[in-house]
């Protein structure tokens, strides 16, 4: 210490040295540098503490992304839980072209896994868009292989693909969804709101190569769509579809439809059309295949409407069960037009008018009714109204206002011409005969009997009488012997309608049959329509009734409905029905 002090003293006294290395300069330079560092601390405080909101916002806009977590669409099943439509996860491969700089080798591998032409892939990746899909909905196993390549700028996300295990059999009923997962047809569209899942979201930070680094903020979980359980019974649907298809092939028909309804609950147990399509592969679809004819196409039903005319006349007291109607000579001229029976009849009771299906008889009974009375009845059983099942393209059919009816129109409407209905409307209207006069709404989903409230159209007495007449129609002397079902009493009505083509009735027909069983306490209604049978037979009793018989019989047995008749089927020559 003494040495140091002495040295310091000595140097301090040296003026030369002070002049040479002025201490103030050294202190000033050091101070300048320290001051500059202090400025850096100030700047750092400004950036990190005062202005960090602005900077973090800028950062978030560069690497924070909100991602959608896809939600699966609800399943559609039949009444027994058998799956009709289900979503399975698939992967979609996307690219950010600006980041996707692939080596030739990587491009080759990717093209091979995507099963595309390498040139096509190169063309897509050369796009100036900021985001493109390379391939949508590939199997997860393939997607995993692609992920393992760790390609820059290539990513994938989960999408759901809809599968329809029952395929074409339930195509019109279930419908299908588009690639965006929204329902386009059938139940898929009708129950869109319930089926649709609500995607969740998560906020993530991504690195510049698009890889997720971490989650930020809270995750909103996806809500999967609700499952829908239909009233449909797959077994009955299968029967209905296959029998319809068979009948159409045998009769070389253009198209057809069938509906099976539970008369107690209004549930639609089966609904099928032909032609149909495979909802799992919709690449070559035409509009005709897509049409759910049973609800979208109205046709002139023909004689299947006669029971409504008769029931109204009975209800109003204009005729009784056994009132004689003179149907000779099988022709009736109203104004300038003439209507005729295909086979002339003599005097017929009201019951026989149904049994034999006499147009002249129906027209004469209609003449006892006021146009407004008939219009009101048609309206009450649902004709001219949307059936409101929720299907897309449901038609109202054609029911002209009664004030503009001409007498000939009222006459033809009594036997189902000059009026048009859809098959589902017709089937529903028959609930009045199956339920002692009450019309109930139909339901695509499961429904307990007695829940859906209907409207009373006819009195139970009237309906019992009409049902007896409808039973006569399938017995010897009636038009539809082939509609009989072993073990069950059946009540039903045939229809064979000329088709209107360009305003003129052509020699093309729509054959139909609507019936119910067991007749003592009807459980099921089956309505069958065959469009343009061209293999020779065209009567409803010949073409549609056999379909009814086999579907009804099998359906009743499937549901375990107790028999109400012997298993022997009555035989006899079916008389040719009139138009």
């Amino acid at each position, binding site marked *: 210490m003494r040495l140091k002090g002495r040295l310091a003293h000595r140097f301090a006294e040296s003026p030369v040295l002070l002049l040479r290395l002025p201490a103030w300069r050294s202190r000033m330079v050091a101070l300048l540098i320290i001051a500059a560092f202090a400025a850096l*601390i100030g700047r750092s405080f400004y950036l990190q*503490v005062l202005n960090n909101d602005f900077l973090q916002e800028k950062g978030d806009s560069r690497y924070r992304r909100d991602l959608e977590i896809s939600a699966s669409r609800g399943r559609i099943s039949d009444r027994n839980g058998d799956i009709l439509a289900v979503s399975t996860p698939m992967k979609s491969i996307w690219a950010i072209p600006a980041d996707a700089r692939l080596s030739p080798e990587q491009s080759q591998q990717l093209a091979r896994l995507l099963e595309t032409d390498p040139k096509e892939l190169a063309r897509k990746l050369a796009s100036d868009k900021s985001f493109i899909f390379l391939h949508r909905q590939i199997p997860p196993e393939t997607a995993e292989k692609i992920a393992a390549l760790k390609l820059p700028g290539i990513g994938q996300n989960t999408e759901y693909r809809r599968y329809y295990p029952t395929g074409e059999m339930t195509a019109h009923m279930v419908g299908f969804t588009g690639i965006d997962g929204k329902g386009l047809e059938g139940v898929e569209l009708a129950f869109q709101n319930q089926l649709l899942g609500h995607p969740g979201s998560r906020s993530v930070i991504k690195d510049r190569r698009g890889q997720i680094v971490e989650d930020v903020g809270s995750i909103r979980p996806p809500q999967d769509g609700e499952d829908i359980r239909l009233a449909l019974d797959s077994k009955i649907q299968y029967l209905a579809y296959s029998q319809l298809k068979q009948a159409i092939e045998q009769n070389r028909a253009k198209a057809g439809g069938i509906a099976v309804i539970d008369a107690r609950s209004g549930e639609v147990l089966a609904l099928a059309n032909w032609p149909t399509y495979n909802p799992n592969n919709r690449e070559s679809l035409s509009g005709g295949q897509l049409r759910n004819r049973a609800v979208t196409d109205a046709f002139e039903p023909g004689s299947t409407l006669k029971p409504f005319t008769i029931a109204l006349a009975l209800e109003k007291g204009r005729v009784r069960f056994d009132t004689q109607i003179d149907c000779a000579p099988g022709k009736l001229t109203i104004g300038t037009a003439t209507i005729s029976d295909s086979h002339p009849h003599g005097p017929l009771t009201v019951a026989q008018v149904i049994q034999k299906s006499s147009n002249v008889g129906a027209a004469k009974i209609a003449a006892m009714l006021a146009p407004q009375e008939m219009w009101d009845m048609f309206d009450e059983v649902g004709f001219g109204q949307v059936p409101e099942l929720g299907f897309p393209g449901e038609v109202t059919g054609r029911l002209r206002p009664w004030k503009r009816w001409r007498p000939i129109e009222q006459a033809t409407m009594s036997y189902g011409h000059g009026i048009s209905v859809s098959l589902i409307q017709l089937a529903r209207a028959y609930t009045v005969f199956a339920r002692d006069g009450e019309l109930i709404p139909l339901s695509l989903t499961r429904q307990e009997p007695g829940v859906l409230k209907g409207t009373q159209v006819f009195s139970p007495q009237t309906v019992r009488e009409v049902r007896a007449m409808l039973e006569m129609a399938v017995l010897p002397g009636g038009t539809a012997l082939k509609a009989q079902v072993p073990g069950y009493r059946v009540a039903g009505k045939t229809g064979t309608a000329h088709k209107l083509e360009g305003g003129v009735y052509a020699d093309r027909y729509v054959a139909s049959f609507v019936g119910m069983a067991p007749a003592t306490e009807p459980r099921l209604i089956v309505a069958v329509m065959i469009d343009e049978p061209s293999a020779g037979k065209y009567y409803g009793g010949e073409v549609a009734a056999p379909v009814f018989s086999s579907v009804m019989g099998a359906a009743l047995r499937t549901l375990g409905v107790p028999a109400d008749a012997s298993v022997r089927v009555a035989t006899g020559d079916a008389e040719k029905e009139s138009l």
Partner: protein
Amino acid sequence: MLRTWESPVRAPAEVDPMLLWSALILLVAGMVMVYSASIAIAEGGRFTGHQPTYFLVRHAVFLCIGLVAAIAAFQLPLKTWQEISPWLFVAGFALLALVLVPGLGRDVNGARRWLPLGVANLQPSELMKLFAVLYAADYTVRKMPHMGDLKKAFLPMAGAMVAVGVLLLKEPDFGAFVVIIAIAMGILFLGGMRARLFAILIVLLLVAFAAMIIVSPYRRDRIFGFMDPWSDAFGRGYQLSHALIAFGRGEFFGVGLGASVEKLFYLPEAHTDFLLAVIAEELGFFGVVAVIALFALIVQRAFAIGQQAVTLDRLYPALVAQGIGIWLGVQAFINMGVNMGLLPTKGLTLPLMSFGGSGIVANCAALAILLRVDWENRQLMRGAKL
């Protein structure tokens, strides 16, 4: 041994412990941060062979070489350093010229700053900073009697600086040029060059810088990018805007070591020139303040050691110590100022911390010389002869 341990009077330190610890902490922290900042690009890059430790291993090797260089440098007395300083300066000059020889120098990102040495590249401009300190100090001591004379004291040095400057700007390495000019000017100023002359010189230099910036579009672009990075945030302002975002994300305590997002391919040069931005993001305001404080401490110790040498009538060691202080201080300030958007972007690393072999080795050697000055001071004060 036991007695020494128990002795209440601790033996006086051989070298300045504050300086030694500050430097060691910065070196070790730098290695950790280089690893953190480089791990993603090392793993993601093809040239690294997808090795996440690619830069860490190299940085550690450079630190070892730096340690060896430091031990070697510490062995040489300042007297010897003074004797060989003109030759070192000439050698540095030759190396700078070699870089520019076609076929010898190596280009990276449009700048020719490296000489390939087989396993690693040598960056002569980093060595030149150290040589400039040693030479400018020697020059100043020799010209001490004529410090007031423009012709004798200033012009030769100015000539040497112009020659070095021409070579550096050819590369181009504007950052090294600024640092070397700052070293030379600073040492002349400390050496007592006339204040008026100095003032004129500063004005002239400012005019020259301004002219260069206006003439060269490359530098002008960099200036504009720094003024408002958000106006062209995905073009000229890209790098700086990401550096600033890193600061903003760090807040007080940072997002945590290793958790930086900016280093995930967003911020270019995260492990070299923009290492401080990653420190700011991961360790926050307090991390940045710690780094600045350690550098301030090193600068303060360098000047204190220099002043101590002055009191011991050791002019050359005094100027060398303070010159090293100026070098590390100025370069750290410029690098950090660039990171924070206070200064235009130029290629300067953060001393002692950033990835870069030549820089680390030169910094270690410089610190060793600084410690040698201190050691010699202490020896003299104990009455020992050198």
